[in-house]
């Protein structure tokens, strides 16, 4: 399969690999996919006091397209508000990386990962204002589809 230069660049030089402290209130963690399906993405965002995403990290188990898709979105979300980040569409990711048709699901997963990270961040924010029992983020894989 021939991949685009942009995809190969993200695969070979992935941006923002790593982990943020998932217990930090300012960090939202999204864990999507399933090992049995061959791809799992963990995407984390850290939201600053100004409401902008100041850092993003990812770890991905998956094919080259999955790694590139998650690497790309960590670049895209930085500096955005969480509302802006939530508007990133899988089609934009697929278009930017020129994903072949069989790899479109990788971009879908990356979009889901952002949404899951945002949802986790928001749930923490709510919890902070009205404390109640919640599941730790790393124990729940958000539905991909």
């Amino acid at each position: 399969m021939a991949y685009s230069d942009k995809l190969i660049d993200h695969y070979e030089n992935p941006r923002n690999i790593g982990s943020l402290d998932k217990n930090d209130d300012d960090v939202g963690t999204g864990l999507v996919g399933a090992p049995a399906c061959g791809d799992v993405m963990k995407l984390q965002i850290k939201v600053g006091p100004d409401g902008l995403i100041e850092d993003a990290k990812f770890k991905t188990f998956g094919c080259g397209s999955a790694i590139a898709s998650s690497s790309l979105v960590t670049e895209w979300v930085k500096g955005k508000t969480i509302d802006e980040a939530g508007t990133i569409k899988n089609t934009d990711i697929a278009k930017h990386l020129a994903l072949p048709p069989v790899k479109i699901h990788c971009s879908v997963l990356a979009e889901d990962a952002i949404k899951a990270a945002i949802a986790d961040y928001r749930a923490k924010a709510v919890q902070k204002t009205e404390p109640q029992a919640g599941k730790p983020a790393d124990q729940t894989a958000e539905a991909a589809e």
Partner: protein
Amino acid sequence: MTVLTQIRRNDQPIYLDYQATTPLDPRVLEAMMPYFTYKFGNPHSRSHSYGWEAEEAVEKARAQIAKLIGGDEKEVIFTSGATESNNLAIKGVAEFYKDRRSHIVTTVTEHKCVLDTCRHLEQQGFSVTYLPVQKSGLVDLEQLRAAVTDKTVVVSIMAVNNEIGVIQPLAEIGKICREKGAFFHTDAAQAVGKIPLDVEAMNIDLMSISGHKIYGPKGIGALYVRRRPRVRLVALINGGGQERGFRSGTLPTPLCVGIGEAAEIAMKEMDSEAKRLKKLQDRMLTGLQSKLPEIYVNGDLEHRIPGNLNISFAYVEGESLMMGIKGLSVSSGSACTSASLEPSYVLRALGVDEELAHTSLRIGLGRFTTETEVDTAVDELVRHVNKLREMSPLWEMAQEGIDLKSIEWAAH
């Protein structure tokens, strides 16, 4: 005329996919060349020397193949490859004997061309038993014995599996088939020239052979069809009645010469080659195991051809690993290399977890693999597995002691 060919150019990746295909042995090419050029006769032309010379070459090749498998040259017919041989063997006997016997036994780990042929016959009204295999990849002989009935026309079980390289107990299978009066067909594409085969001792009635898996040319194969007791087949291809009427069409003389020469070389060099490959296999495996935790060999390591390793590198997806190891040409059991998005059905049949199936690579070693290439491959694999594990959330979770099975993953 000497035809000297280089097996690998220096700028090409290291070839470690010998179960997919093998390069043509330069000695084979040399034997073939005259039949592409001045010895171009039709082997079926009986009226002049061009034809006689081609016929002689084709018959020599037939004998070379027969000798390698312990059969008689009259029992070898040429086909376009192992896929055609498998189709002809299974459909041919099923069709011929359908009034008396209409049941077929095979295994779930057969090559797609056997499984698809069986599916086709099911649609034609035949019944097929797909035997499971054990964790080792080997068939359970008691299960086989129980599955074969007086309605079974043919048992089709591959000699060596193309993904995991395991060797089925052919002699024992042959014995059971003979006792039950069913024909024994074996797809031996991955076995011929790699392990000793004897159609007599193993009671094999039909055997499929491929040219390009034994350093011969692509586009040629053979089918061994037993004469005593006689196995009858309905032909797939009708025409001039060549190949005892089993397979019409003008024989491709250069290709026949090629597969014959390849068989002869394999016969002469099988022992020494197997020993050499066993060393390389050990070197590869111990090299990887000493540097990487959590890697698993899929399929039995004892009953296995030395030219195959199938390894799961836990927490690293196979396609991404293949993208990294650009200097190596291997193949993967991961779904992401195919359009199907399903991981290898062979690995699944062994009971390998889907997540581990996604992390598997098939590494094929062969005649032209060197120690240096193995060492380079080990280094490159170790480097990239480590790099990808560093970016794998599963590896991170496993290091934190989280049981991945305890998590409710959302299938997608």
